[in-house]
Structure formats: structure tokens, C-alpha cells
């Protein structure tokens, strides 16, 4: 007999912690994609991370310089400090908001599969849960390496990490790609890295970490850009945070520093890149600006256009407005700002988002975006959603179209 009372089931995970399986953390997105019918679209995530510091004992064994290797081993064996030779910033520990966002703190879930590196399993779980066909992987703490006081250490840690990730992670799954770290602190090492890793499995381009304090238009870097253009390899500027420049030193909370820092670094580099005419010098070099969000772009377009038109003599290489160059660049979508949807829509229009924007998750960081953040935008037509979620990245990185999609 019908009692009039409906039965239910308890969810297997009542509270999400650092030990929760990635697929359970992201289950709501998996379910939503099926409900809305976009789970079978090509979806490519152009910015996700793994915690290379948890594998640091393995990474440092790839250090070529024998003395730096010795120091790294010595530091690694001690407790209480940052992993050997890295300039890991203690302030980063605020990222999980005091334990409120467990996946930022640690992915400590059980992994039974010992046939591949643990990170590969974690990456696969996030890709499956988010419905991804490819994921472009970056390190975490090494994004700070551009401010390391020792350029030689930056260079050799970059080389070691690149060798480790190409040997250990990328060969394990065709869906994992990367834009490899270039240590601008030592331009010669950038050339070595481009030469050594071009064509390696999973390498789809190269990346400059934006947290660094040398102008990116300096003549010493020009041959690097020339080499990338000749090889048709994209160049990414991956934003990051710093609490040590004169501006962010004035912010005493993580929220304040993070909100400014991730944008400020790319504001400076993009300004130099455009005003010094790099897009004219390398018209076929594709640049990607990663993890600064999107709200800065209308500001940059209007500000640079206004000043350029009054002072064209200071930027004689330019043949069109700065905003015209910006509209030819590529951008990652995360962390997308949507608190004022009219402004978001205007930003998409201004930057030609339908052809220039690419979805990024930034998983497993605290401000990650699931693919539904693009799918749910009320002003986008379906083709634009498909372009941003996958088609633009398929073209830019010349990736094989996923089977059946």
C-alpha cells in the first residue's frame, strides 16, 4: 500500500574531504553534462595542474648540474622547509581558504593502480569527471620559479622538470598534453629546451611563467620567439601570484593579493608585447594568455588604444590599434568573471571570444571552472560554446579530433 512517503538514498559521500575521490568531488558536473546533453561535445581543458612537489624526490634526480643535484638532495632530506632548491612560497598555503576547499589542499584519495604514476590516475579521474578529451597540464609551485633569485637554478629545475614530466607523465596517456616551462632567466637554456623537447609526445608548445620581473620584449629573448614562430609552436604566458613585488606587498590578505597579482603580471607583459611590436615582428607566433580571467581585456583594449593614438611615435612598429592585436591573441577562460553578465557579454564581444577563447579548468585549484561555466553562459550560441569548449583548442594545437565527436 502506498504510504504517501517517498524513500530516498543517502549519498555515499556526506562530506567532501581531502580523501574524497576526484570523481565524487566533481560528480555534480558529470551528472549535469549528461542532463544537458553536452557530454558528447569535444571538450579540451587548456590549463590544469598537478602537484609536482609531491614527486620532487623523483624530479630532482633529473637535475643535470652535479652541484645543484647535490644541494637538491641535501635539502630534500631535511624536514620543515620547502622542497629542495625550489622557491616555494609559504603564502600559497592560504589557497584552500583555511581548509574550506579540500581539493586545493590535497588530493589524498586512494589510488590502487600502480601501473602508472599516481598523478596520471588523478588526471584521468578529473578528465573523466569533467568530460574532457584532452587536458593541457602545468606544474603548480614551479609557476613561481621566475622569481627565483638564482637564474641558474631556475634554468636547471626547468630542464629537470621538463625531462621528468616528458618521461614519467606524458607518455602514459595520449590525452595529456603540455606547454613546457621556458626559463627566461637563462635564454640559452630556453633554446636547449625548445630543441630538446620539440616533437616529444604530448608537447604542444612552450610557456613563460608570467611572475617574473624582466621585460619580455628584451632583445635577448627575440631569437627564442623567432624559433617558436619558425616551428609553429604556440607561446603561452601563464599568470601566477606573487606577494613580493612593491604593489602586492601592500595587500595583507590572500584574496587581495590573488585578485591583483594574477592579472597585473599579464597586464605588464601584454603591454610590452604589443607596444614593442612583437605581434608585427612575429605575425605567425600564436600567443595564449592563461589564468588572468577575462575582465582585464576590455580595460587593456581601451587603455592601450587611447594612449597609442596620442603617442604613436613611441610605438612605431604598430600598424593598427593595440586592441586589434589583442583580438588576434588566444586566451584561456578561467577564472571567468560572471557577477555582471552584461559586462561578461561585452567582454566576449570585444575579444572575439568565439574564435579566440579556450576553456580552461585550472583543476584542482580553488577557483577552478567546470565546462558548464561556458555551457551555461546565456548569451552564447551553440557554435560559440562548442568553439570555446573544444574546437578552438583542437585547431590551435592541431590535435586529433576525438573519435565520434
Amino acid at each position, binding site marked *: 500500500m502506498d504510504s*504517501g*512517503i*517517498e*524513500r*530516498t*538514498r*543517502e*549519498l555515499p*559521500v*556526506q*562530506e*567532501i574531504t581531502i580523501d574524497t575521490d576526484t570523481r565524487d*568531488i566533481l*560528480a*555534480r*558536473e558529470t*551528472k*549535469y553534462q549528461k542532463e544537458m546533453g553536452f557530454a558528447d561535445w569535444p571538450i579540451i581543458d587548456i590549463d590544469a595542474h598537478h602537484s609536482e612537489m609531491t614527486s620532487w624526490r623523483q624530479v630532482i634526480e633529473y637535475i643535470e648540474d652535479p652541484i645543484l643535484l647535490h644541494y637538491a638532495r641535501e635539502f630534500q632530506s631535511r624536514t620543515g622547509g620547502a622542497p629542495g632548491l625550489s622557491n616555494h612560497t609559504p603564502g600559497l598555503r592560504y589557497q584552500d*581558504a583555511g*581548509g*574550506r*576547499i*579540500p*581539493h586545493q589542499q590535497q588530493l589524498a584519495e586512494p589510488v590502487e593502480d600502480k601501473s602508472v604514476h599516481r598523478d596520471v590516475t588523478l588526471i584521468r579521474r578529473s578528465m573523466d569527471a569533467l568530460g574532457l578529451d584532452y587536458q593541457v597540464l602545468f606544474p603548480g609551485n614551479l609557476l613561481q620559479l621566475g622569481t627565483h633569485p638564482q637564474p641558474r637554478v631556475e634554468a636547471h629545475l626547468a630542464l629537470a622538470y621538463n625531462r621528468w614530466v616528458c618521461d614519467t607523465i606524458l607518455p602514459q596517456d595520449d590525452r595529456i598534453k603540455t606547454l613546457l616551462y621556458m626559463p627566461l632567466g637563462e635564454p640559452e637554456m630556453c633554446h636547449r629546451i625548445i630543441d630538446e623537447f620539440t616533437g616529444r609526445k604530448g608537447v604542444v608548445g612552450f610557456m613563460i611563467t608570467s611572475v617574473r620581473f624582466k621585460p619580455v620584449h628584451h632583445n635577448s629573448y627575440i631569437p627564442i620567439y623567432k624559433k617558436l614562430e619558425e616551428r609553429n609552436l604556440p607561446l603561452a604566458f601563464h599568470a601566477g601570484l606573487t606577494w613580493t613585488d612593491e604593489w602586492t606587498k601592500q595587500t595583507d590578505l590572500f584574496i587581495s593579493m590573488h585578485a591583483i597579482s594574477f592579472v597585473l603580471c599579464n597586464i605588464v607583459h601584454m603591454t610590452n608585447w604589443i607596444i614593442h611590436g612583437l605581434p608585427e615582428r612575429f605575425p605567425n607566433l600564436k600567443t595564449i594568455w592563461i589564468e588572468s580571467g577575462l575582465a582585464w581585456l576590455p580595460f587593456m583594449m581601451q587603455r592601450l588604444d587611447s594612449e597609442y593614438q596620442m603617442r604613436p611615435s613611441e610605438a612605431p612598429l604598430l600598424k593598427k590599434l593595440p586592441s586589434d592585436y589583442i583580438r588576434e591573441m588566444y586566451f584561456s577562460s578561467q577564472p571567468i568573471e560572471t557577477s555582471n553578465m552584461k559586462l561578461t557579454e561585452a567582454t566576449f564581444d570585444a575579444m572575439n571570444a568565439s574564435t579566440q577563447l579556450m576553456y580552461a579548468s585550472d583543476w584542482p585549484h*580553488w*577557483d*577552478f*571552472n*567546470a565546462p*558548464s*561555466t561556458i555551457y551555461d553562459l546565456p548569451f552564447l550560441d551553440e557554435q560559440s560554446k562548442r568553439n570555446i569548449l573544444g574546437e578552438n583548442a583542437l585547431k590551435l594545437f592541431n590535435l586529433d579530433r576525438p573519435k565520434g565527436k
Partner: protein
Amino acid sequence: MVKVFVGAETDFEDRGRKVIEYNDTEIGVFFVDGEFFAYENKCVHQGGPICQGRILNRVVEVLADDRTSQGLTWDDEDVHIVCPWHGYEFNIKTGIHPGNKNARLRRFDVSVDGGEVYVDV
């Protein structure tokens, strides 16, 4: 509207919860200060599993009479549920974000009958 069984009243400790699923709708039922509160397990921000997050008291900033800051501390009364995806926080008794009154969780009525807890869906 149907009455959906959640569990026995005695299953809930103070600040305890049950997150259940009924017909594809996930609902979190919380027991705080002797009262039950229920919300959809879907954060208004980006759809995250809000009811599976941490329960923490609200953080407040202490201002002296001269309006100088005396630092942050826990509020004794206001209890928050925190979305584990991105950290959005909501008052567990009202379902409202502390700084954005338009950010409100979808709420369900809770009843207790004969020691059993139900939500109206």
C-alpha cells in the same frame, strides 16, 4: 509535493547532516541549534555540492569604538555551510550568502513526525 523520508531524528547530532537523493534531486538536511534546515545540494555559484562542504562558524572582523580593526574572530551564533568547490558560504539557517543577499540556496521545508525527519519536495 511529496513528503520524503530523510532518517530518524536520533540520527542527527548537533551540526550533523544527511545528504540524500530523491528522483535526481540531491538535498542536504542539517541539524543546528535544535532545528532542522534543508537545501538543494547545488550551489548557486557554479552548481557545486554545497551540502557536502564544511560547517564552520561565520568569520567576523572586530572593530573598536574608534573603528580601528582588532582582527578577525569567529561569530558565536552564525553557522555557515561552505561549498567545497569554491568556498561560497551561506548561513545554514537562512541559506543566504553573508555579502550577497541575491545568492540564496534553494530551501526545502522539514518536518518531524514520530521521531522521523521528512522534507517536502
